[in-house]
């Protein structure tokens, strides 16, 4: 029921996780899997199956009622469904926020923020306020903010669900590049099968509530993955298999 700091290669592991809310709703049942550094695992599942609950448990925002989580929460990265930028701060100061909360000095956090802003392609927008940016740009700023901590574990809770299809594809490609470059352990939640297969090393399918892992797919495609991969026959076949499992999970 508690999180422990692990020294093994498993950056994040869930062991028999169960979650029942105080109102009696059972959200998760016996969920076990792990994510190593250099692995990008995506969980797909029907709405309300407990995917986001799983991330909240990993980050410590919620406490599981069954099982054990192993993760170092000191520098955990968490990207929410919304960009959650502070409206009153410029992009530069938003990106500096986490470093600021961790007590990193002004000069150092400015450098960290600058590098992260460069990394997500937002250079030139440092002095803009969130209200003047598009949804995709806000999400990039949110990614940059998390990158300043160089997190060994990166949690993504449907971060690109609210942006248009083309922007989403671009953001998928950028996230994939960041993953390759930083080598973090990524745990990604999405409703999009294409997004899951395109970015991940592994795709897990969750059942309807109470959420359980009902299928697991290794994704064999080499990184870096080109946009054209989405039209590849092998990609379509794997997506079809995930889709079939997901349909089963709905019933």
């Amino acid at each position: 029921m508690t999180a422990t700091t692990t020294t093994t290669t498993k950056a994040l592991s869930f062991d028999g996780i169960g979650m029942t809310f105080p109102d009696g709703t059972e959200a998760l049942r016996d969920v076990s899997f792990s994510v190593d550094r250099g692995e990008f695992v995506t969980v797909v599942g029907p709405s309300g199956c407990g995917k986001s609950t799983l991330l909240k448990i990993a980050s410590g925002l919620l406490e599981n009622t069954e099982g054990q989580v192993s993760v170092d929460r000191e520098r955990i990265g968490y990207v929410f469904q919304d960009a959650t930028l502070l409206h009153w701060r410029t992009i530069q100061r938003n990106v500096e926020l986490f470093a600021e909360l961790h007590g990193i000095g002004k000069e150092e956090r400015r450098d960290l923020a600058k590098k992260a802003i460069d990394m997500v392609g937002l250079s030139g927008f440092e002095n803009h306020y969130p209200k003047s940016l598009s949804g995709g740009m806000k999400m990039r700023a949110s990614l940059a903010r998390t990158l300043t901590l160089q997190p060994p574990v990166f949690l993504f809770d449907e971060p690109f669900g609210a942006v248009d299809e083309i922007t989403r594809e671009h953001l998928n490609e950028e996230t994939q590049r960041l993953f390759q470059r930083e080598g973090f352990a990524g745990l990604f939640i999405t409703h999009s099968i294409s997004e899951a297969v395109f970015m991940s090393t592994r795709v897990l399918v969750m059942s309807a509530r109470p959420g359980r892992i009902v299928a697991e797919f290794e994704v064999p495609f080499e990184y870096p993955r080109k946009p054209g991969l989405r039209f590849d026959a092998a990609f379509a076949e794997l997506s079809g298999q995930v889709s079939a499992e997901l349909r089963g999970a709905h019933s």
Partner: protein
Amino acid sequence: MTTQQAAETGAIESPLVGGADPSTMNAGSIRLKSRRRLAAETILPPMVMGGIFISFWYLISYGVLDERRRFLLRPPHQVLKVGFLDWDNFSEILDGLVSSTKVAMIGLGISIMIGFFLATLMSQAKVVERAIFPFMVTLQAIPILAIVPLISFWWGTGQRSRVVVCIIISLFPIIVNTLFGLQSAERGMHDLFTLHQASRVTRLRKLMFPAALPAIFAGLRISAGLSVIGAIVGDFFFGLGDVGIGQLLRKYANNLWGEQLLAAVIMSSALGVTVFLIFGWIQNAAIGKWHDTSDSGI
């Protein structure tokens, strides 16, 4: 190709950057034209309305009231001549206005301090909010007339009592708006601060207080106007100490000096509007860059 290179070549820039502020793309001439149009749209409606109001005023003074009863509503030009252009009369009104402004600002300042303190306290624990809030509502619901005798028992009939009236009248909007603002930060933002183990003070300073600023300013604008009313009402009731606009209103009314009375009313209203505009300007300077402040129409 790195992300940055891609951005530079435009491969990924256009669909994402396309959402940046479109106003920067407008040509200068179009901007100038639209500014003029905007100015016309802002200034013309109140001017037309003012014209209709003055015409209606004349209609009542000359069309409805006969010579003997015209003291009930003197025509605008007579108010201008006696109330504003006669320096003795106008300087008396100005002196009263200065005295009332002082009272209003002292009362507002104290209200802001008490209001911020109580709202911050209530934002930190639901139990504190439950304990304090009903009494704030009760205080707000008491008609000021009903407690005037009590106020004069405790603080006399001078400046202090007038300040107390100001505080009672202007405190509630500050508390309610500040509390609402402090509680307005989104759940996701709070989660961010929780994830990074932010202390209570850090959360208050870096999240709750900045998020509350738009609501705080909305409260301040309301309370600033109310504090002017409080200063005038207090002065009107207590009638001792420095002569404020309230005492003058009473004097002019008792002597049926319609011109000075209306001039004093107009100046009181002008004071309220000025205070409202000043706080609007401060609000715009403080948060206008990041918050879409609604147009007050003034």
